[in-house]
């Protein structure tokens, strides 16, 4: 019984001492992307639909306008202590839902 308690205590201590997971290891959140350039090259202007983009890159930060156009934004996850701003991939969809413009900043 004492041995089992000691084992659990040791496991608990190990968990406590374990370093937090690196950002690259954790799953991407909404609007996050590993590489803006790679994300852009995975898409086809004039062909990709919103569903295609969602399947390839996941959920985006979306601004939908009264005109029917939509801007979708993905940002690269910032690395630890990274001073530079995160790269962003900006996509424009026509009212019919087709990707019409892209840019990476």
């Amino acid at each position, binding site marked *: 019984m004492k041995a089992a308690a000691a084992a659990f205590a040791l496991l608990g201590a190990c968990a406590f001492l374990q370093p937090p997971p690196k950002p690259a290891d954790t799953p991407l959140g909404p609007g996050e992307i590993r590489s803006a350039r790679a994300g852009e090259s995975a898409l086809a*202007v004039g062909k990709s639909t919103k569903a295609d983009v969602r399947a390839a890159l996941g959920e985006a*930060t979306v*601004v939908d*306008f*009264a*005109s029917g*156009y939509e*801007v979708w*934004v993905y940002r690269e996850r910032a690395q630890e202590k990274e001073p530079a*701003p995160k790269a*962003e991939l*900006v996509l*424009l969809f026509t009212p019919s839902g087709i990707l*019409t*413009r892209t*840019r990476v*900043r």
Partner: protein
Amino acid sequence: MGTIIRFFALVAFCTTAVAADDAVVVTTLRNPVAKSYRKMVEASKLFEEKRHLAPEAALRFKLLPREQDVTMQGIRLKVEAESGAIPLKVSPDQTFALEVDRRALKENAQVVPNRKAGTMTWRADVRTPGLPPDTRRLGDLRLECEVGMKAGLISKYPRGFWDWLDALLPEGPAYCHRAQPNYLFFAERPLFSVTLVDGARREVLSVDRLYSGATKDPDWKKHLRHCDCAALLDRAYFMPLGDASWSDETRVELEYMDGPT
């Protein structure tokens, strides 16, 4: 009975008279979009004092839609004082120039269009002639901000609405000297990208500086109705006005949603 007949005859006459002229001119509104004439004249003086920012430009003021379906054609504008009204000529691009009238100043006149409050917003319009198409000049925009803030052209917002607006309103032209002020400019058409070019230096603005910052505000839809950008969200952008590393000659290149790819 005779009185009733005369009444209906009068109603019929009035109805016919109105129908004969579809272009009904609304001369008085209960709740018009009005601005202080005095403040706008003071802002014009500030424009003269700060001409070094845009030496070749002229000052005009511009009316912009605040609601999606407001008609911007046929706007009639006047300086309304106690002793009478002075009509102002509004160009087809909805800009107008202001002239100084001492009597109107003394009487604390208002600049009043024939539109209801909440349907339109106002901006200063400062444009150096001869720029390439789809290009603005940063010095012009710096001056637009200062004149616009001095004139009190930015609409009032409910208290607590977007922190940056709370900070903006009481500060006046000095607000434009901040590195990244949230003074909204509006392009001619919906924007996809804005690039600053100063000599060899070139920088694309973050998408967070477009669309009134909607991409960094999860509740932007809730706030939108309070913003004077409500009908122009896709044309709205901020500029790094107080960032002295960008000269007044910096070109602001506007890339439109419907532009060439």
